[in-house]
């Protein structure tokens, strides 16, 4: 069985504030342990609000940020942390990114096929003639034609089309896993599902795995095999996506699910309490959700909950799960 993704006690600490004094430590990742083992390719979603650490996790897995401690494995190769790691070229042959805003990912002064070409030559190590074939092949997989893309600048595409081009670029080196950080949040609703469905078909036909970072639980439910819910740098619930979203057990996952504006289900009109000490929550010794949690007890304030493994295989980080 392949280890698609494994992080062991992954930590990332950012320091904010003064140069020497009063520095605040923000544990953007706090002992993150995720393990996904499967022979089949998988789509793993990481969901959470802003400040939950989901983008930091993506950056660590893309080697854009060095973890403070801990390590990460992708397809049985260690890619971050202490120890022997693959070279950058080898690494980007395994892991490829897709970013949130395709109009920012591509320079407006450069044709988009230039990006595809340099990925083919530099990362996939292809000859010039092979590179064009690889580009055409990758574009075909995302439903575009090379001749429609050649020589065009980013402003000649819609957001959805341009995001497809960035998926095609990521596919050229045949990566094992694609890390997509909020890939559809900038795309209009009518085009969003086209990109989401593309991920699904690439998983099924092309056998690529995805790490899908998002705040949108509905699309996460739609495409994921596994889901990790994060809050203030900690994983709060992790396991099979449909099981967790059908029956969330951590109070935070429940709160998140209750807050989605879904068509066909109107909210109850209760008054909501507001938490407003976000920065302080990173310093909590106990459960970081205890301040907002409806079932919090004294124990939650002093003791960090460890993972409770449930019969359905999910892990819940709550004393009362």
């Amino acid at each position: 069985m392949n280890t698609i993704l494994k992080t062991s006690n992954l930590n990332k600490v950012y320091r904010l504030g003064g140069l020497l004094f009063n520095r605040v430590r923000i544990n953007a990742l706090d002992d993150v342990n995720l393990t996904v083992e499967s022979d089949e390719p998988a789509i793993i979603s990481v969901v959470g609000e802003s400040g939950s650490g989901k983008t930091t996790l993506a950056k660590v897995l893309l080697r854009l940020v060095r973890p403070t401690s801990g390590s990460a494995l992708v397809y049985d190769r260690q890619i971050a942390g202490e120890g022997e790691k693959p070279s950058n070229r080898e690494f980007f042959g395994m892991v490829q990114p897709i970013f949130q805003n395709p109009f920012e990912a591509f320079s407006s002064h450069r044709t988009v096929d230039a990006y595809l070409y340099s990925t083919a030559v530099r990362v996939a190590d292809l000859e010039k003639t092979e590179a064009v074939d690889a580009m055409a092949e990758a574009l075909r997989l995302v439903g575009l034609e090379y001749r429609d893309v050649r020589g065009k600048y980013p402003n000649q595409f819609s957001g959805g089309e341009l995001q497809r081009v960035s998926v095609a670029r990521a596919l050229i080196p045949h990566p094992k896993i694609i890390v997509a950080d909020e890939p559809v949040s900038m795309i209009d609703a009518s085009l969003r599902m086209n990109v989401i469905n593309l991920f699904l078909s690439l998983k099924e036909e092309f056998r690529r795995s995805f790490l899908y970072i998002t705040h949108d639980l509905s699309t996460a439910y739609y495409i994921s095999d596994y889901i990790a819910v994060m809050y203030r740098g900690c994983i709060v619930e992790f396991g099979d996506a449909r099981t967790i979203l059908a029956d969330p057990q951590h109070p935070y996952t429940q709160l998140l699910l209750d807050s989605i504006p879904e068509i066909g289900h109107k909210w109850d009109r209760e008054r909501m309490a507001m938490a407003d000490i976000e920065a302080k929550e990173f310093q909590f010794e106990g459960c970081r959700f205890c301040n907002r949690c409806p079932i919090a007890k004294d124990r939650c304030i002093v003791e960090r909950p460890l993972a409770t493994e449930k019969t359905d295989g999910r892990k819940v980080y709550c004393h009362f799960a």
Partner: protein
Amino acid sequence: MIRLNNLVATYTTVRGQVDAVDGVNLTIPDGKIVGIAGESGCGKSTLLKVIYGDLIYPLALRQGNVEYEIGMSPGHIVESKIRRNENETENGGQVATRNIKDYWFKQISYIPQASMSSLNPVIRIRKQFVDFLDSAQRTPNILEKIREYVKSLDLPPEAIDAYPHQLSGGMRQRIMVAMATFFRPDIILADEPTTALDVVVQKGILMLLMRIQEEMNNTILFVSHDMGVHYQIAHKMLIMYAAKAVEFGDSEDVFRAPLHPYTKMLIESLPSIGDNRIRKGIAGRPPSLWEDLIGCRFAPRCPLASDLCRAQEPELVEYRQGHLAACHYAGNHINRQGSETS
């Protein structure tokens, strides 16, 4: 009541003029939350700016006007002076709004998307709160009144003593809501007020807006691209596509039995938790407003499009009681596809 009479709003750019709102005719009733939905570039934010009378170059009103019925006494009509200026040049003419600006904050107010860029970062909130009051309203106990009002919205009264950066995004947006509603205005315009926020915070702000609307019974025009948000709060829905209003009606009807195929496809494309059906996006992309557009603007992406659609532009007409659509085959998609019978 707000009447939009054949509005055409234009942006002047280096490439020429482009009509971001093109011929919108609509009467918006009082005391309702009206959701305005559509994709980026469909003209929903521009429409809001025109209604607010915030016409700053390069935005100009090329045609039409907005009539407001503002004020508690019935029959008291304020008509905006959004009219064509006769002296201007042939390229459409400059138009100015005058009157409606006198009612800003008091009778008509605006909640922007980016609260961080709307609040001055170096001035305390309470000073900014007082800044938009005129001298007559700056009574000695005004700060007490503000604190009381802020408290009535379940916000900590100390929040107004802070600088904007000391507050979280959700708290800042609540402050914006408090500022916009302090005078109990008749009309509140909200342009994607929750888009940059997390879902939990978003829910809190939407609840707050609904509560304010119920208490004050004002008209809220709420722009969002998120149909789920509209489902939660809107009484009426306006769907826009490529600078046109394509559907308007009670939000219950619009969500249950949409008349325009665009609305129907938009709603059906959204995945929801617990539903494992395959969802499809809409193929193609919205037309470029730079081109000469003939016929229905949705026709290139529409499964029902016929030669009639490609040749003749449909008008926004009433099909059912209070439910308007701009489609030659409005409502027919239900029968035509045969799969659903109503």
